[in-house]
C-alpha cells in the first residue's frame, strides 16, 4: 500500500476497510444470486417436465375416454338392434305359431260340436283341452317376452267389472266343483256398472290368480272380492281386487320371490303342481302397467290372499249397443240370417276353419284368396261384411281396404271390414285403424268374441225383420 499522510490515514483506513467490506458483501450477494438463479432454473425445468407429463396424461385420459365413449355408442346401437330383432322375432313367432294353433283349436272345437262317435268324445275332449293349454302356454311366453321388451301397451274398452268377475267365477266353477271346493264372489254395492280399461288383461290376471288358488287348495274354498272407492270427481274409481284361498299358503321367505321367474322354488313347484311359473310374473307386470301393485299376504299352511288395486275411469252413460251385445251372448243361438260375408284369406286351412263357423251360424259365404281378387269380386257383387286377412300375396289386407274405401258405390265403400290379425301389437292395430278397417279379431280367435263382433257389425242387417 502507498504511503499515506498520518492525519488522513485514520479516515482513509476507515474508508478502505468500508470499501473492502462492501466488495466482500457485494460478492457474497452475487454468489447468492447465482445460486438462486440456478435453483430457479432447475425448478423451472422440473416444472416444465411435470407439465409435459401432465399434458400427456390428460391426452391419454381423453383418448381413453373417447374410446370408451365410442364403445358405449356401439354398445347402445347393438342393444337397440338386439331389441328390434327381439321385437321382430316376437312378431314373426306370434304369427307363425298362432296360425297352426288356430287350426288345431278351431277344428277340435268344431269336431266336438258335430256329433262325434261315442268313442271319439274323450280323445276329442283331450285334444281340445291340450290345444287350449298349448295356446295358454304360448300366450304366456309371448306375453312375458313382450313385457320384457317393454312392448306391452294397455287397451281400453268399456266393460262391466262385476260381469267380468261373474263370468270368470262361472267358468272356474266346474274346476272348483271337481275338487269339492267352494268358489264365492263378493262384489260390494258401490262398484260402478261400467269402467274403461284393459278387460282382457284384467281378466287374465284374475283367472291366473283364481286358477293358482284352485291348484294349491285341497279343502275349503276361494273367495274373489271386489270393492271400490269413488274418486270425488265421480269420473274414476279405485277398484280393489282380492283372491283369497284356504290352500297350502306361502312361507315368508318364498313370498320374497314368488313373483320372480327362474327361481329354484319355481322349478320344484312346477314339477309338483305343473305350470310354467311365468303366471305370477306376468300378473305382476300387467298390474303394474295398470298402475297397481300385486301383493300377497299369506301364512304357510293356512292360505293365501293375493290382492291389488287399480284406478280406472268410470263411464256413466252406458250405450245400448254394449247391452245388446252382452244380451246376445250364447253361442248356440247365433243366427246370422244369411248375411253375406266375404272372406278374404289366402291360407286354405284358415279358410276352412272360418267357413265352418260362418256356415254353422247361418251366414252366406264367399271366399277369395287375396286383395286383388276381392276387389274384382266386389265389382260384380254386393256384400254385408268383409273378413279381411292381413298378410296375403299380390295385395294385402291394408291395401285392399284402402281401395275399397274409395269405391264410388257408397254401399260397397262403407261395408264393415273386420281384420283377421295374427298379433295384436299396437303397430298392427294402429295400421288396421288407419287403413280404414272397422274392427279386428286376432287369431286364433275365440269363437265367442268372433260371434260377438260379427253380430255387432251386422246389427243393422240382423235387425231388419
Amino acid at each position, binding site marked *: 500500500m502507498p504511503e499515506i499522510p498520518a492525519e488522513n490515514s*485514520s479516515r482513509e483506513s476507515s474508508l478502505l476497510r468500508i470499501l473492502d467490506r462492501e466488495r466482500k*458483501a457485494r460478492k457474497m450477494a452475487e454468489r447468492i444470486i447465482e445460486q438462486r438463479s440456478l435453483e430457479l432454473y432447475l425448478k423451472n425445468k422440473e416444472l416444465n417436465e411435470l407439465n409435459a407429463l401432465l399434458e400427456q396424461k390428460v391426452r391419454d385420459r381423453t383418448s381413453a375416454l373417447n374410446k370408451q365413449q365410442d364403445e358405449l355408442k356401439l354398445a347402445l346401437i347393438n342393444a337397440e338392434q338386439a331389441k328390434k330383432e327381439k321385437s321382430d322375432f316376437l312378431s314373426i313367432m306370434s304369427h307363425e305359431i298362432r296360425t297352426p294353433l288356430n287350426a288345431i283349436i278351431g277344428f277340435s272345437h268344431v269336431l266336438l260340436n258335430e256329433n262325434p262317435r261315442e268313442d271319439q268324445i274323450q280323445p276329442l275332449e283331450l285334444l281340445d283341452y291340450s290345444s287350449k293349454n298349448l295356446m295358454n302356454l304360448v300366450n304366456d311366453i309371448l306375453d312375458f317376452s313382450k313385457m320384457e321388451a317393454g312392448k306391452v301397451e294397455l287397451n281400453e274398452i268399456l266393460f262391466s267389472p262385476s260381469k267380468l268377475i261373474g263370468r270368470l267365477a262361472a267358468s272356474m266353477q266346474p274346476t272348483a266343483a271337481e275338487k269339492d271346493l267352494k268358489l264365492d264372489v263378493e262384489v260390494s254395492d258401490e262398484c260402478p256398472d261400467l269402467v274403461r280399461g284393459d278387460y282382457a288383461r284384467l281378466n287374465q290376471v284374475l283367472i291366473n290368480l283364481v286358477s293358482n288358488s284352485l291348484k294349491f287348495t285341497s279343502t275349503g274354498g276361494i273367495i274373489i272380492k271386489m270393492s271400490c272407492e269413488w274418486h270425488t270427481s265421480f269420473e274414476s274409481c279405485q277398484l280393489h281386487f282380492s283372491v283369497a284361498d284356504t290352500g297350502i299358503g306361502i312361507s315368508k321367505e318364498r313370498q320374497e320371490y314368488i313373483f320372480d321367474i327362474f327361481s329354484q322354488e319355481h322349478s320344484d313347484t312346477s314339477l309338483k303342481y305343473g305350470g310354467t311359473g311365468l303366471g305370477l310374473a306376468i300378473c305382476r307386470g300387467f298390474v303394474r302397467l295398470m298402475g297397481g301393485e300385486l301383493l300377497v299376504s299369506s301364512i304357510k299352511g293356512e292360505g293365501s290372499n293375493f290382492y291389488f288395486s287399480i284406478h280406472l275411469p268410470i263411464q256413466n252413460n252406458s250405450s245400448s249397443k254394449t247391452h245388446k251385445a252382452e244380451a246376445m251372448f250364447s253361442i248356440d243361438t247365433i243366427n246370422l240370417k244369411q248375411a253375406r260375408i266375404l272372406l278374404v284369406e289366402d291360407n286354405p286351412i284358415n279358410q276352412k276353419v272360418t267357413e265352418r263357423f260362418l256356415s254353422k251360424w247361418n251366414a252366406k259365404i264367399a271366399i277369395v284368396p287375396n286383395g286383388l281378387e276381392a276387389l274384382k269380386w266386389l265389382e260384380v257383387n254386393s256384400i254385408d261384411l268383409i273378413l279381411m286377412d292381413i298378410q296375403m300375396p299380390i295385395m294385402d289386407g291394408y291395401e285392399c281396404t284402402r281401395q275399397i274405401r274409395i269405391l264410388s258405390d257408397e254401399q260397397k265403400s262403407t261395408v264393415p271390414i273386420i281384420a283377421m290379425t295374427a298379433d295384436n301389437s299396437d303397430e298392427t292395430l294402429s295400421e288396421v285403424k288407419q287403413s280404414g278397417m272397422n274392427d279386428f279379431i286376432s287369431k286364433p280367435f275365440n269363437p265367442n268374441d268372433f260371434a260377438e263382433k260379427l253380430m255387432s257389425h251386422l246389427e243393422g242387417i240382423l235387425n231388419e225383420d
Partner: protein
Amino acid sequence: MKGIVFTELLEMVEAKFGLEVADAIVQAAQLESEGAYTSVGTYNHKEIFALVAQLEKHIGLNAKAIFHVFGQYLFQQFYKGYPYFFEHSTDTFSFLERIEDYIHVEVLKLYKDAELPRFDIFREENTLRMIYHSERRMGDFAHGLLLGVINHFNEPSIQIVQESLSDSGDRISFTLTKNA
C-alpha cells in the same frame, strides 16, 4: 439471522453517527463475518449483540435503549421494503394479531432459513397480550419493533408492559393496552 437486520443496523449507525463510528464498531466487534454484510445473506445472530455492545461504548446509550430505537427504525424499513404485508391492516392490534399466522408464514415462504420468534396472542377488546418465545432472546429488539408498529399506525396511546416469564429471557410477555 438474515442479513437485512445487520445491513440496516449499520446503515442506521452510519446515518446517525457517521461512517467512521460504523467502521469502528465493526472493527472492535471482531466479527467472524468481518462485517461484510449483504441483506440477502445469513449470519450468526450473536454478531448483533457484539455490534450493539460496541455501540453502547461509543455513544453512551444502553443496549436496551439502542434496541428500542433500532426496532422502530427497522420496522420503518420493513414497511418500505414489503408494503404488501400491510394491505389488510388498519391498526396496531389487527396487524399484530396476524404476525404468527400470516406475516411470519409469508416471510418463511420467501426466506426458508429466516429465524423468527414465536408468539402466542391473546386479544381482548382493548388489550393485546403477546407471549414471546425465542432461543435468540432478543426481547428488547422485539419491544423496539412493537414500538415501530404503534408509531406506524399512529396510536401513541397504546402502552407496552414487558414482563420476563423466564430467567433466560427466552419467554417474555408483552401486554399492549389501548387507553382512551
